[in-house]
């Protein structure tokens, strides 16, 4: 009896939580296929894809490509750096581990706005291209996430696997490629996903350091949302924003499940 009640409560909890996350998406999805939807009506009065057409006209396609590239570059840079930092922090041989850990996590507490403002000045003096500046700054912003994920992963990693591989004839490089990376793949994927999100969803740094020349999807959404009467276009752009993370999350889940099939 109590087991059944407990299971029921669990199901209710999960459903409520899923509803909490999914409900806001319902009007978004409806707006995405609505041409006209005035206030009291429960459903749109006119269906259509004018929002998508408007978004495309505003340059949603190239912006999508730019955002994807930005997220990917940040992930490619921040994941190996985070793995190195995480391994060092988890190894226990690092002097001043607590201080280094705190420094690496500091981008979480310093508002990106402050960093962006200061960095902008520095960039102008150095003559670095704005795109490089955005990538650099977002990589730093992504490091706390990748470092944290990889520190946890390395903390749970059994270095006996490395020793075993070494005595079987594997060089340190081969150990990394054939043992460590495959065993840490789920964590690496999770770290890369978080880093991608930092690049993908950034607004402040892209706007300030990019100087408005680097137009990404969040910038388009913001400019569209600040005007009145184009909810359909905002909905289309917003759905565009949600899509890549959902696809990535699903593929990470697949990687994780594949890893769990062999791991205990």
């Amino acid at each position, binding site marked *: 009896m109590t087991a059944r009640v407990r299971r029921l409560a669990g199901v209710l909890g999960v459903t409520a939580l899923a509803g909490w996350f999914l409900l806001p998406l319902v009007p978004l999805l409806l707006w995405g296929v609505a041409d006209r939807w005035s206030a009291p009506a429960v459903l749109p009065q006119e269906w259509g894809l004018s929002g998508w057409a408007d978004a495309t006209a505003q340059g949603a396609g190239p912006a999508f490509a730019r955002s994807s590239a930005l997220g990917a570059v940040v992930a490619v840079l921040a994941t190996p750096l985070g793995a190195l930092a995480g391994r060092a922090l988890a190894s226990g041989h690092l002097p001043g581990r607590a201080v280094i850990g705190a420094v690496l996590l500091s981008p979480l507490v310093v508002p990106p706005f402050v960093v962006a403002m200061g960095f902008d000045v520095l960039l102008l003096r150095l003559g670095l291209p704005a795109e490089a500046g955005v990538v650099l700054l977002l990589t730093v912003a992504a490091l706390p996430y990748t470092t944290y994920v990889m520190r946890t992963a390395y903390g749970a990693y*059994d270095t*006996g*696997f490395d*020793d*075993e*591989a*070494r*005595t*079987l*004839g*594997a*060089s340190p490089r*081969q150990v990394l490629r*054939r*043992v460590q990376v*495959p*065993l840490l*793949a789920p964590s690496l994927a999770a770290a890369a996903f978080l880093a991608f999100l930092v690049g993908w969803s950034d607004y402040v740094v892209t706007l300030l350091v990019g100087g408005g020349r680097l137009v990404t999807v969040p910038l388009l959404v913001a400019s569209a949302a600040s005007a009145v009467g184009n909810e359909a276009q905002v909905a289309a752009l917003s759905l565009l924003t949600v899509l890549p993370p959902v696809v990535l999350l699903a593929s990470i889940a697949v990687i994780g499940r594949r*890893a769990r*099939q*062999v*791991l*205990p």
Partner: protein
Amino acid sequence: MNGHLRLERLSLRYASQQDPALDGVDLEVPAGSSVAILGPSGSGKSTLLRLAAGLEQPTAGSVVLDGIDLAGTAAEHRGMAMVFQRPLLFPHLDVLDNVAFADRIRGVPRRVARRRAAEFLDLVQLPGFGRRSARSLSGGQEQRVALARALAAEPRVLLLDEPFSALDSGLREEMYELVDELRLRLSPTVLLVTHDHREADALGDTVAVLDGGRLLQTGPMRRLYTRPASLAVSRLLGGRNEITGEMRAGWHHSALGAVRVAAPTADGPGVLVVRQEAVRLTASDDAGADARGTVVRVRRRGPRALVTVEICGPGAGSPALLTAEPGPGQVLSVGRAVGLRLPADELAVVTAEPASAARAADAVGSAEDGQR
């Protein structure tokens, strides 16, 4: 696949610790032989294997393989495959690819490596297990695969770090038989460490007793059982009987009375040690008994029992306690009067402890010199 391994004055001292983890260990592992290092936890035995494998660097001394000093040779080029207590099968590879790992690292084509791996799986009696996930195996099977993987690397020395301690006793027996068989077919050079003297006896031709980072005694297990060089060795081997007394002209005098000791032993104070398995309990009126006493305690240990006998010697001194381990046929109860026979050639007299390890080691040296 067998090399001759020699450890010379091998020492390791961690900066943070006062006592060295290993202190001047000399050990010879002839090609094709199996040497077991027996020691309690913390004795430095795993460290010794890690030094041999090149996973750690010694502070002094050297590891010599077939006459070549391996200092500066990286672990992956030493040709020493290790099997740990945990099987450490790579979870992202199936059983076959685990065994094929060393070949694949060397650049052997996948198909060839897998065919060879299958042969090694046959060798450890796991034919047809190749396509299974490494995590679907039982503990014993995992350790067999780990063994096959190490053998497939064709090491010049096979290092075993307590490989069977995590298995239950039945499986352990099977693994001992498997290792015997593998040794007959491949005659690898084996260096293994264990805390279990029975395992050391089952797997090693020669046993080296390690405690506190020093080798206390090296030799065949039979000899270690009957002639331990020190109380420490006797205790590590599970010896229960220690009777203090004095040696005079080949006889040991103690609360037991006078007992003849066959091994040549210097006169003076000494502790008589005798394996509980060697003590024979007879009838109380046995004319040939070396001592007589009363059973004061009986502890069941499966088919055998540990029987403690209290012996009041000829003098008025405090009584001595001796433990015997009779077989299942002999039923004894507390209070029973018994005679004891102590075979002269299974007795040894060692110096009273505590004695630092250094003195114990010296004692080993002089005792062996005396033998020659």
